[in-house]
């Protein structure tokens, strides 16, 4: 058990290092170095060659690629992602609070979405093929087919413009405490929730349908155990375990959804910084945001893997 758990942790670390290397290659080696990326071709042509060389030297870009990669990895471990190219502020200072704020939003969504999706998924699977089930299946397809920014905009139109009970954009500032932030952003939370519940409920319904149709549930029914005990104590754990492995896709899509929703509502999170970073071509900011959110996804996956190890003894042999 311990060895299997350690193996999972090690694999996650390897994945993360590979991700860091990949992010570095995609942004700084393939298209040229950080300076080539942040300046346009016209700007580079305007700058005299001596000054360009001096700028590269200042930024440490005259060193060979593998040295810069090592420096990047070294920095990433200590959460030092370098400085921005224009204002020279440390990247970690720029993304620190936004990262916290995005995590708060994600946490709030997960806390509400998981119990609701469980209830909906179980109900749909229990009454499989009946009206409830059709409603849930159709509703969830519609739920994840509508883009998040459309859901968000429609919610603003309904609850901030037509019937103004909530603010349209978030008034809280970046460094406000968690509860102030959440209290001022009910529409943002609701927007991410709709897509998340649609996705998770569908996933759990499938797992639950399989579990309820399996041989061991049939055998339990023959022993005369009350149906509610079978559903909640026996079928549910068997349905949750396979659903946990699908968490990778969900975690990644949750982050994508949050990035977009933050921009709809001007929520002070990573999404804002990301778009600002891309439009100003601040390579280091984009790298840091990509690495941080990938780390969150990898960590969530590791948690799911460890939970499966604890819940399902069959996986411990691997």
């Amino acid at each position, binding site marked *: 058990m311990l060895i299997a758990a350690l193996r999972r942790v090690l694999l996650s670390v*390897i994945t993360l290092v590979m991700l860091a290397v990949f992010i570095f290659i995609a942004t700084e080696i393939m298209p040229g170095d950080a300076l080539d990326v942040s300046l346009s071709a016209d700007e580079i042509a305007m700058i005299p060659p001596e000054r360009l060389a001096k700028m590269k030297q200042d930024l440490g870009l005259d060193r060979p690629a593998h040295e810069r990669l090592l420096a990047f990895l070294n920095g990433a471990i200590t959460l030092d992602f370098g400085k921005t190219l224009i204002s020279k502020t440390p990247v970690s200072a720029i993304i620190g609070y936004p990262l916290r704020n995005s995590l708060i939003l994600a946490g709030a969504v997960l806390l509400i979405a998981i119990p609701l999706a469980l209830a909906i998924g179980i109900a749909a699977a229990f009454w499989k093929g009946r009206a409830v089930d059709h409603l849930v299946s159709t509703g969830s397809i519609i739920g994840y087919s509508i*883009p998040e920014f459309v859901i968000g*905009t429609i919610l603003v*139109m309904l609850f901030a413009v037509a019937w103004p009970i909530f603010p349209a954009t978030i008034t809280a500032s970046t460094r406000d405490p968690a509860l102030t932030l959440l209290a001022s952003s009910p529409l943002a939370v609701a927007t991410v929730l709709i897509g998340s519940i649609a996705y998770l409920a569908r996933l759990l319904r499938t797992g639950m349908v399989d579990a309820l149709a399996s041989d061991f549930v049939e055998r339990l029914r023959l022993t005369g155990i009350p149906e509610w005990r079978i559903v909640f104590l026996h079928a549910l754990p068997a349905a949750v375990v396979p659903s946990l492995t699908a968490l990778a896709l969900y975690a*990644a*899509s949750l982050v994508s959804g949050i990035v977009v929703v933050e921009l709809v509502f001007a929520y002070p999170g990573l999404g804002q910084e990301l778009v600002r970073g*891309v439009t100003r071509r601040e*390579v280091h900011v*984009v790298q840091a945001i990509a690495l941080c959110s990938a780390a969150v996804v990898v960590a969530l996956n590791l948690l799911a893997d460890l939970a499966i190890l604890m819940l399902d003894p069959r996986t411990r042999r691997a």
Partner: protein
Amino acid sequence: MRLFIQRLFRRPLTMLGLLLVAIHFGIALAAPWLTPHDPLKLLDAPLEQPTGVYWLGTDELGRDFFSRLLLGGQISIVAAACAGLIAAFGGGIIGLATAYHRGLFDDVVSRFVEMKLSIPSILLVSLFVTGFGQSLAVLIGVMGLIYMMGVIRTARAQGILIMEQGYVKAAKLRGESASAIILREMLPNIADLLTVEFALRTSSALLLVSALSFLGLGVSPPTPDWGSMIQSGLQSIRSEPWLILAPALCISTLVIGINFATEGVADLLGLEAARGATGQ
């Protein structure tokens, strides 16, 4: 085939989906002939109310909104379909190759797939847009790559099952080369699976393109696109809400249509692909 079509007609949601897709594709194809006005021409009358001449009024720069709405899906649909095609074909071949060869090649590819799946797609696109600049080719390439990862997984799982089949063993005994077996024997046998994957990935790619356009990182102005049209409509959310509602309705009905159709068809083909894991 006739039985298949008969069964299809008994599923109202699937038919609705196919109808929506047909309408949207028809409009996107015929849009250049349908538009009553030049979608890029500035009419010097921004945010006009709808009239008999300008059916949905004009946008914030004074361009005919109805014409822009008709054209607003073109680029996204082409980009998403190209990405879906790259993903389905590339992913299918690579997935089958890993199933055929196994060993180190399989391990390396699987690790790479897992790694890619843990970067949220919006971030991956942002990385490449920062590095290579904002262009349609970059967008299609990156999206193709992103969605290929999921297809590799599905195709690999199916390929491992197919490897046990008699016709693959027979081809091996005939001494056919690996690429011939993968392309001629295995690929046709997962054609239905890859078709469904193509549709699923195209719908995900559509969502991604429109989100990127909304963020200002996708289709660049002045080309009309539903995502960026919703973004600019936010300025007049109180006075002219239809500038948001019309493109929102278009993109939503298109993606809902694709997903309804795909789910029904996949179900009829007896494929597991309809089981909700549409990915990001």
